[in-house]
């Protein structure tokens, strides 16, 4: 998972934060222990200095030790004076294991009652005797465990708060992003009225949402204006075209028109062509508007290709092409049956219109991941890869097809139909020929 994703960043942040908190807790723990040890060591050194002040002879030292043992403020210190041969001379403790000269740390292994951890100071006296002082650095039983618990509770709470905070923050960011995403998806689906909800709490998120909505308002206004233009064209241009159409028709039936009938028919045909282009443009606008989604129903794609193939069968036969329907599995999509039929008819017609007689055209439908893939394949000349994008553009006619029927609106219309159905249109190399894939989301 690359670190650019929000989830990865959150996980990495929490992991680093946890590690830092644990290291801090450990450092605090060891610093605390070290500080106690230093205090205990100082105390032992002070006590040893007092006992050994003036380098007293052994007998006097024994007395001083006995005196210290009676004193309340040094009752928590263990004393041991040994002769050079190891014989116990004075003191209230026994050390089964030897301790090194100077300061050292001792534990339970010394078997001193009530001592779980402590510091020992061994001083060698000039005559060879050894004075050992021992003090607990764990004054209370299980003090270390308690200290650990306190540290764990403190740092654990900090850690939990940080994790919860980070999680909440990431949730808040995700929710905001989701709102933007769902709004964008609704817009893509044709709902131009979708907007990001504004909760009035201010801040950068709010400003971002407002900017986003503002952008959508602007796009919507432009779209409304464009649609308005389309409608105006529809009315203002269709009416004179209708008049022209009517006039040509009226002219054609007049007896005196007999001499120029051929010209009149050519005029009618040209006018008809303009009207067809117009119908195609308006159809694309209608499909892109998304209104037809209201008619969506479950459609079996096997039936669809059978019907489209059958409808075009005589046309294909007359043009000298060969049509085959590839066997497929039953697959269903949600869609507008008439539009999907139009898409398929357009694709088959494209193959008929742009390939020489004898070309084999195959219709097929199969599963392609979680999509249904409708394919119209031919073994004709195909479309070079660099020209495929152009072929999908409105009025994007290829040089080779300029003298053939069509206005370069067939494929853009199929693409608009694909988009309306949340699908895609792809032109591919059928080696040889062209394969046109119309991918549509499957319904269970």
């Amino acid at each position, binding site marked *: 998972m690359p670190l650019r994703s929000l989830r990865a960043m959150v996980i990495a942040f929490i992991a680093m934060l946890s590690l830092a908190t644990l290291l801090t807790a450990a450092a605090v723990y060891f610093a605390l222990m070290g500080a106690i040890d230093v205090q205990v060591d100082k105390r032992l050194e002070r006590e040893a200095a007092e006992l050994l002040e003036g380098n007293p002879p052994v007998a006097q030292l024994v007395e001083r030790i006995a005196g210290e043992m009676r004193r309340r403020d040094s009752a928590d210190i263990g004393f041991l004076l040994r002769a050079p041969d190891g014989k116990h001379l004075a003191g209230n403790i026994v050390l089964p294991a030897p301790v090194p000269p100077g300061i050292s740390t001792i534990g339970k292994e010394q078997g001193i009652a009530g001592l779980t951890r402590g510091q020992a100071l061994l001083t060698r006296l000039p005559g060879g005797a050894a004075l050992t002082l021992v003090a607990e650095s764990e004054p209370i039983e299980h003090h270390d465990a308690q200290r650990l618990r306190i540290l764990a509770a403190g740092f654990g709470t900090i850690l939990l708060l940080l994790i919860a905070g980070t999680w909440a923050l990431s949730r808040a960011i995700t929710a905001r992003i989701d709102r933007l995403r769902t709004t964008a998806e609704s817009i893509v689906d044709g709902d131009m009225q979708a907007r990001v909800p504004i909760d009035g709490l201010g801040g950068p998120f709010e400003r971002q949402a407002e900017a986003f909505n503002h952008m959508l308002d602007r796009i919507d206004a432009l779209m409304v204006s464009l649609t308005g233009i389309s*409608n105006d064209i*529809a*009315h203002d241009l*269709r*009416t004179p*075209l*209708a*008049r*022209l*159409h*009517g*006039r040509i*028709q*009226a002219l054609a*039936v*007049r007896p005196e028109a007999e001499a120029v009938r051929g010209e009149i*028919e050519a005029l*009618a*045909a040209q006018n*008809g062509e303009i*009207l*067809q282009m117009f*119908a195609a443009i*308006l*159809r694309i606008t*209608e499909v892109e*508007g998304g*209104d*037809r989604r*209201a*008619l969506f129903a479950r459609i079996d794609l096997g039936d669809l290709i059978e019907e489209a193939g*059958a*409808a*075009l069968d*005589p*046309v294909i*036969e*007359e*043009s000298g092409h060969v049509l085959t329907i590839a066997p497929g599995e039953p697959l269903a999509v949600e869609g507008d*049956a*008439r539009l999907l*039929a*139009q898409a398929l*008819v*357009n694709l088959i*017609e494209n193959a*008929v*219109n742009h390939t020489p007689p004898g070309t084999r055209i195959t219709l097929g439908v199969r599963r392609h991941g979680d999509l249904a893939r409708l394919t119209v394949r031919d073994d004709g000349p195909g479309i070079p890869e660099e020209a495929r994008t152009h072929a999908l553009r409105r009025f994007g006619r290829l040089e080779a097809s300029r003298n053939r*029927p*069509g206005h370069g609106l*067939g494929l853009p219309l199929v693409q608009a139909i694909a988009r309306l159905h949340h699908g895609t249109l792809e032109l591919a190399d059928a080696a040889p020929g062209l394969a046109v894939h119309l991918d549509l989301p499957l319904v269970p």
Partner: protein
Amino acid sequence: MRKRTAAAQAQPTVSGLRMDENASPLSVLVVEDDAELAQLLAEQLGAAGYQVEIEADGRAAIDLVAVRPFDVILLDRMLPAIDGVDVLKRLRREQVDVPVILLTALGRLAERVEGLDAGADDYIVKPFEIDELVARIRTVLRRRVSPNADNSTVSAGDVTVSLLRHRVTRAGQPIELHKTEIKLLAELVRAAGSVVTRAMLLEKVWGYDFVPTTNIVDAYIRRVRLKLEVPGLPDPIATVRGVGYMFRG
């Protein structure tokens, strides 16, 4: 603006659509604000044998319909002052059940649905063929006359088509046709004597609301013609150039 165009004064014959001279002409009200288009329509419908009256304003049209009976109303959608769909709703509210065909430049699905929901009997997007308009007028009138007629068997001339049994006979001889061919022939036979446009056939037989670039209808008609061929009998299907077909009956 109101103008009466008598059928007798009009130019004769548009693609052989002229009605029977002896029958009383059917009256059509054209509600259209484009004077030139309205005039053209009146002339062409007059030539087809209808008695046409023109009204440019929706309100005036409502008033006129209240006092004068019409057989069919052709209603433009985009009218000044009151919209064609509102005119239609008003008419239907006032229990006027004259067949109404909306004529409009607005051809989007939602607009069609709105028009049909408002009570229109048919919806024609401009520009249209006059022959198609006439054919559609006949269709709505026929539907009004016999709304519950059994349409599963139709016949005209020496051809009988049984849609339920998938059987076709010509002069008593069975003819083998495929499903689509039977549907196509049935449409032509049902409208015998009237022109049926390619667009109408595509819609009724194939369920398409678009016109393909290739000639699906023509190719099917060629097949049907070939199969209906009986030595000594004429071709029962007439081609109306640039428009569609007509079953001679």
